[in-house]
């Protein structure tokens, strides 16, 4: 009977010990104040936190971003390897813009940055999502400032993430109109499984333009073999055929 009356005290003691042991836990996630969910996504975010399923909901935000960005037709303008016949345009200020030879994903997409940022607000460890967003913003949508903002936010929770730093550097060289430096900077990233396909595409194109056909062909082959994005895969196959047809498979 005495043992029975001790049970509640023992239960409280155990609970306290558990809570004490867990009290050193610090969440690796951004605080709720940083979650800037679009209105139609607030419920999903609540569910993500309640079910402890941030990764899954970050994935779903990534899918939403891809759907928002739409299906792209990837097409390089140059008719043969090494020909820089791709579109260049002038903006209102008279500055020349380069498409890097790829006509994909153009448009205003005003929600792109908030949606891309929200992916890493929900799961800051989703490096591939952040890289995809930053590369799209910087090299497809030509909004490098927004890409830098996204990567800077990513670095806040992953300060040692070399891939973010690499893309930031590539954006810097791109702004300085130094395509060779851009290609050299992103080269180490290409072997990384999280490297977004458009960075590979950019690297392949820049190598092709610089006459490094062997390197370009290797990257196109990698895109064709590993990417599940049909637009990029189709373009890579086309480019590989062109490179083979021009007998440019060998590096110069």
């Amino acid at each position, binding site marked *: 009977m005495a043992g029975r009356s001790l049970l509640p005290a023992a239960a409280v003691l155990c609970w306290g010990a558990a809570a004490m042991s867990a009290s050193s836990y610090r969440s690796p996630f951004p605080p709720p104040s940083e979650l800037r969910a679009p209105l139609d996504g607030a419920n999903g975010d609540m569910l993500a*936190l309640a079910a402890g399923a941030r990764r*899954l909901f970050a994935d779903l935000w990534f899918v939403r971003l891809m759907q928002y960005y739409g299906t792209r037709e990837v097409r390089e303008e140059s008719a043969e390897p090494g020909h820089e016949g791709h579109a260049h345009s002038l903006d209102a200020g008279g500055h020349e813009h380069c498409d890097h030879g790829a006509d994909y994903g153009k448009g205003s997409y005003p929600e792109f940055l908030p949606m891309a940022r929200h992916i890493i607000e929900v799961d800051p460890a989703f490096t591939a999502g952040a890289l995809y967003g930053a590369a799209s913003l910087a090299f497809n949508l030509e909004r490098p400032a927004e890409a830098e903002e996204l990567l800077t936010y990513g670095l806040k929770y992953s300060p040692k993430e070399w891939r973010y730093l690499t893309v930031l550097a590539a954006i810097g060289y791109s702004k300085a109109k130094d395509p060779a430096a851009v290609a050299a900077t992103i080269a180490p990233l290409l072997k990384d499984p999280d490297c977004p396909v458009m960075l590979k595409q950019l690297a392949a194109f820049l190598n092709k333009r610089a006459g490094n056909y062997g390197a370009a062909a290797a990257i196109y082959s990698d895109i064709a073999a590993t990417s599940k994005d049909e637009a990029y895969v189709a373009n890579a196959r086309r480019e590989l055929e062109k490179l083979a047809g021009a007998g440019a498979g060998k590096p110069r």
Partner: protein
Amino acid sequence: MRRSAPVVLAVAYNSFFESVRSRFFTLAAVFAFTAVYASVLAGVMAVDQEARLLADFGLALIELTALAYALFEASSALPREAETKTIYLVFSRPVPRWAYLAGKLGGALLTAAVMLAVMAAIHVSLLLFRGFDVPPAYAWALAGTFLKLAVIVSFAFFVSLFSTSPVSTLVISGIMWTLGHFAAEARFLAERAGGLKGFLLGAALWLVPNLQLFNVRDGAAALPLGLPAFFSAAAWTLSSYLGALWLLSRKEF
């Protein structure tokens, strides 16, 4: 104590085999298989992130399915035995109540572990079949899920001994599970609120098990799961068990 060990095992095995034989278990297994397979569709939409989505979707579904089944079992096990009078046949024998409760809890956790293992085997097969690697922390994610289930299932046993129905036990335990995942956010809000409000919120947090501590699946927990995580899970589980035992020892049938 040593003489009661066979009783604990007998109750645990009986509880486990009853679960496995029940139709609900089969339904849960079918659901899990279908759901995990359906995640292939979602995976395709993620294009180059298909492997990640497939892994995340599968692990989340595995946890939710096991949670639903384990909570259903835990919240109805004791009331069902009382309702069918099976408990009369048990407690009219020299069965210590602590041994019976330990057996019931052990049976529920064994069922949860087997469910996790079966669903994980389906999921891993699916990943390998699709040519993807199994995520490196997969086993730890399952271990974390099991620790979460242990904490919440024992809590459900405790609640089932004073709640008015299995449904209310399910609801209360479900709320606890949700709050357990909010613990880190709630702590942030308490620290930010400050003053009396912050103090009260901070104090209330001690009543909620921090399930993020075990949430390897979500990348919330440190890898590998450390001693504090295992200790906390064991202590929370033991606490709920002792609370349940206190109620059960006073309970009449």
